[in-house]
């Protein structure tokens, strides 16, 4: 079964001067366990697409079904709930709460979900082990490198056991070594835990790691290659 099904998505930003057609009819499906990248030139609509899949933004037209649930039809509060339980996010920056330690950052979302303290601690440890940062768990984010911060963000995104993780240019601010490191971790999680990753990128090295590459331009899918 498709975990994500996108049908006829259009997005028009209403600028005062002239409307911007960011997405012009996108149809896509994603299966459980995919490791897919979305590429395209700047302004092609990658961020817009990911935001709409993640329920952060509403499409002007079209539907998105996640595990059969039409998220465009959900009310604000239900949508937030749904996001919290089903979707993990990794952004390009501003991923972490600066006043919380690494451990607290990962725990926080589980806390919002009302997960018990022991369970939280256990899972936080597992996740930080998985991203290789257990020794930094009591540090504040500003004591970590950009790559380490993004790994914490991945751990945080996994905390709620989401159905898939959306990552908008997760490596854009990283050097090549950190980029490789982050991708290795993502790949490992994908292969060993069958976690679904969908990420956008400009970086050809990142594209090479992906098993599926979706290219969009001017808000349309122009190629969709799996290998």
């Amino acid at each position, binding site marked *: 079964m498709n975990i994500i099904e996108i049908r006829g998505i259009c997005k028009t930003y209403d600028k005062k001067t002239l409307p911007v057609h960011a997405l012009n009819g996108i149809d896509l499906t994603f299966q459980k366990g995919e490791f897919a990248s979305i590429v395209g030139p700047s302004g092609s609509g990658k961020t817009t697409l990911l935001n709409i899949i993640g329920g952060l933004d509403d499409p002007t037209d079209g539907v998105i079904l996640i595990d059969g649930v039409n998220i465009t039809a959900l009310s604000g509060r239900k949508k937030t709930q749904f996001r919290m339980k089903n979707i993990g996010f990794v952004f*390009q920056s501003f991923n972490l709460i600066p*006043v919380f330690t690494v451990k607290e950052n990962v725990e*926080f979302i589980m806390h919002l979900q009302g997960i018990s303290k022991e369970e939280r601690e256990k899972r936080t440890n597992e996740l930080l082990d998985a991203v290789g940062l257990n020794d930094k768990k009591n540090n504040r984010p500003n004591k970590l490198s950009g790559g380490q911060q993004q790994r914490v963000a991945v751990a945080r995104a996994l905390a709620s056991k989401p159905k898939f993780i959306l990552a908008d240019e997760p490596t854009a601010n990283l050097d090549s070594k950190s980029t490789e490191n982050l991708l290795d971790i993502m790949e490992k999680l994908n292969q060993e835990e069958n976690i679904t990753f969908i990420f956008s990128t400009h970086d050809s090295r990142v594209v090479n790691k992906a098993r599926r590459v979706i290219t969009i331009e001017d808000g349309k899918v122009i190629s969709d290659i799996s290998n």
Partner: protein
Amino acid sequence: MLWLLSWKNIWRNKLRSIVVITAVTLGVFAGIFMIAFMNGMVEDRIKSVIRTEISHIQIHQPDFKENHDFSLRINNADSLIQKIIQTKYVAAVCKRIIISSLVASAETNTGVIITGIVPDEEKKVTNISDKIIVGKYFEGRGKNAVVIGKKFVEKLKVTINKKIIITLQDINKNITSGAFRVVGIYETDNTMYDEANVFVRYNDLCILTGLNDTETHEIAVLLTKNESSETVKQELKKNFPELEVQDWMELSPEAGYLVSAMDQYMIIFILIILLALCFGIINTMLMVVLERVKELGMLMAVGMSKPRVFFMIMLETVYLSLTGGLIGIVSGYIICKHLEKAGLNLYFWKEVYSSVGYSSFIYPTIDFQMIVFTTWMVILTGILSALYPAYKALKLNPAEATRTE
């Protein structure tokens, strides 16, 4: 965890938070101190109105107070006093003769009210005897002694042991006069009082005017506590329907007004301070929200609901104002409690204060109710000033978090 997050968040920009907290602290402290100060002043004034000038209740013939008519006398004063002293809450009673007169010294002369008193009884009711700065309060047996106020001494240009001539109307409306020796000079906190009140012995005045010593113009009643004034007044009114019974609030309306107006002034005062603080806090919290647009967007994206975001910003604001408020309240309380005992000597403003009837030695008094009220108001201010910034945070869009430009 949300509580912890909010608390940690206010320390992100230490300087800014400290500035806000300091402003709230100072504002609240100033409010508490001013209130305690004014409270102390008013209480002191009330105390001297009651203990020095008026006592709790006075009884006259109707209309006597209007024109001090010599003929409006209470007859059987002594038996009346016997009855009054039996009344509940009554501590002491005394009688007085009050006559307008002309007083002359070697230098000059002036009109003044002469009060004839029974010193031993008067001492139990009023405390003029404690306010003697030169000489004695009618000690010894010397006839025709007079005790006058310091201000009056200056006006009349006399000194202790000098004689003054008191001229007045006797019982038959003839002009009569007597020489009185100044045996004591008193000074209260109220120069107007000192200038207008001259005391002689009851008996001396009876002899001079030909009055019978059971006749009197005024009966003054001291109670065991201020709060009983109304009850006792009603009781006495019932017992002596033909006489005029008035309590200190009626006799000194300005002092009565002080008591009722004080609470309102204090509340208005606190509200103005808090309103000013409110705007400062709103301004700061708006900056906070604006700075954290991306982070708040991220929090919403990962599942923090809007009510939680709203609550977080509210909490931060309340923490800020409450921290400052509590420091202000506690320090204000401690300092005022100390001054309540030690007193605050504003000797350099003594002239100003005593010319309007106030002591320059002030004991700020603070009551617990006022502290509780202020605490609630600070919390309320925090919440009110949080509303708008928190509302602004609500309007943020989680999609913002992903926009990097």
